């Protein structure tokens, strides 16, 4: 835990990177949602139907957006490329195993990414309720909260797994290129290319694309449909999508650990 605390202190200490990586985009998206909801015309005293679970599912599912991933990649690089940038591996490597050091960075990223998604989720809830309240309307939740909580939790887990995959690519590219830009750009381009290929090929029924964005999208769609009482993903497809999403995290992370543990740090 102390190692994670150290990484967290370094992450938060980089105020610019922390803001742009984990806070800026949620704030912009919340503002955007607030403006959109504020433009809806119900007058004072009218009842307004709000859908908090769908709002939360959409917010937590934003992890699949390539532009969200670009900002989160900036945050991840501020952890994984930091020691190369400031030649500070020499302070850490003699004190802890290299695997533990990478694991602590991954844990710090996971905490920050979860906080970012939580900020986006809570902000979106405010964005759908506050404008209605300001106009004197009465927001009424129209969804089953118990079942919805499970769906939100499952979607959050899928999104976190997808973001850990993003962090794993950042970790790998940081070790390969030993630079911040080199750590950010390839994972972003991968996410962007994945989204483009996914959009081009479309989602034919019964097919699962082995792309970093497609498999978690399928899982999130299945969870959301399940909340509505529909079934669009079979158990086998869900397992395959989960395996693909896990592989997009596990393979680059294992490669990053393997490379880093064998790497000569002659100038860092």
């Amino acid at each position, binding site marked *: 835990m102390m*190692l994670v605390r150290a990484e967290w202190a370094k992450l938060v200490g980089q105020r610019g990177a922390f803001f742009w990586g984990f806070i800026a985009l949620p704030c912009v998206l919340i503002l955007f949602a607030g403006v959109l909801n504020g433009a809806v015309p119900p007058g004072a005293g009218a009842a307004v139907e709000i859908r908090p679970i769908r709002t939360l599912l959409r917010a937590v599912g934003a992890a699949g957006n390539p532009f969200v991933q670009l900002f989160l990649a900036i945050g991840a690089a501020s952890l994984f490329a930091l020691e190369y940038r400031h030649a*500070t591996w020499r302070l850490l490597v003699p004190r802890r195993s290299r695997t533990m050091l990478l694991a602590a960075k991954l844990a710090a990223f996971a905490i920050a990414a979860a906080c970012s998604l939580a900020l986006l989720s809570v902000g979106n809830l405010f964005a759908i309720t506050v404008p209605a309240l300001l106009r004197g309307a009465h927001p009424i939740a129209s969804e089953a909260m118990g079942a919805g909580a499970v769906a939100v939790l499952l979607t959050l887990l899928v999104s976190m797994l997808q973001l850990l995959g993003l962090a794993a690519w950042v970790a790998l590219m940081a070790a390969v290129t030993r630079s911040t830009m080199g750590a950010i750009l390839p994972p972003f381009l991968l996410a962007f290319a994945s989204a483009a290929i996914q959009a081009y090929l479309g989602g034919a029924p019964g097919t699962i694309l082995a792309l970093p964005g497609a498999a978690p999208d399928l899982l999130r769609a299945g969870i959301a449909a399940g909340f509505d009482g529909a079934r669009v993903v079979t158990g086998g497809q869900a397992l395959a999508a989960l395996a693909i999403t896990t592989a997009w995290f596990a393979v680059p992370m294992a490669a990053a650990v393997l490379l880093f543990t064998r790497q000569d740090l002659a100038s860092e």
Partner: protein
Amino acid sequence: MNALDVAGLSKRFRNGVQALADLSLSVPAGGVYGLLGPNGAGKSTLLRIVTGMVHADSGSVSLFGQAASVESRRPLGALIESPSAYPFLSARAFLRVIAYTAGVPADPGALLDRVGLTAAADRRIGAFSLGMKQRLGIAAALVGGPKLLILDEPTNGLDPEGIMDIRRLVRGLADDDGLTVLLSSHLLDEVERVCDRVAIVAHGRLLAEGRVTDLLAAGDELWLDVRPTEAALALLGAQGELRDGQVVARIDRAEAPVLLSALIGQGVEIFEARWQRLDLEAVFFAATGAERR
């Protein structure tokens, strides 16, 4: 028990540079051990291998009798080459981060006080001078109370007063706190003043090693201001040479009375006879084969 044992260490980098070639040395526990060598001698590579930053091609490293590992490196503190730190943190926060990383409790205030940075404890490191960063690097190396402290050029960038402070600190750590200090320096005078033992390294090999006093004593010379010099040189043979108009005799101290008697017996006038101890610079250049500047 030795604090550090290095046996048959070799390292060739991918660019073909042979940084270390079958290097072996032992650093006894206690005292200050100097590591001397010209640029490219392999000093930093050696220290990086000891600290686990660089992997050796062959050979072994032991710390306090245990094979080098993350666990056996726990009693190790190191300042390798130029000091590095996180410029966005304060000195106090930086030392806390290092303590968290090491998993040890730390008292940043006491450490900063020890290296004379108390007044700058809450300033961002990015605004520090090189000398302040150097001091902070030493404070970071002291986090966790190491038994072996590796300092690579610790006085770089310091003003003369700062250099004296760090030298006193290093001696104090060895003498008062019982630490073993491995000090790598290109400042021969510094090593001579601070170190108890010294190893001279060049081209990745160990050229000379021993107590500083022994290395210097081995180079004692008897300088003779005599007339005529030719007679004295003839008597000394290969043990004598003419330097700066004076005869320099490389003999043991016990042989001096016999030599002086012989010179007087041959009618040589002796105006002055004095022992001159070589400095470490001379020993260093003799060992590395470089020309004396």
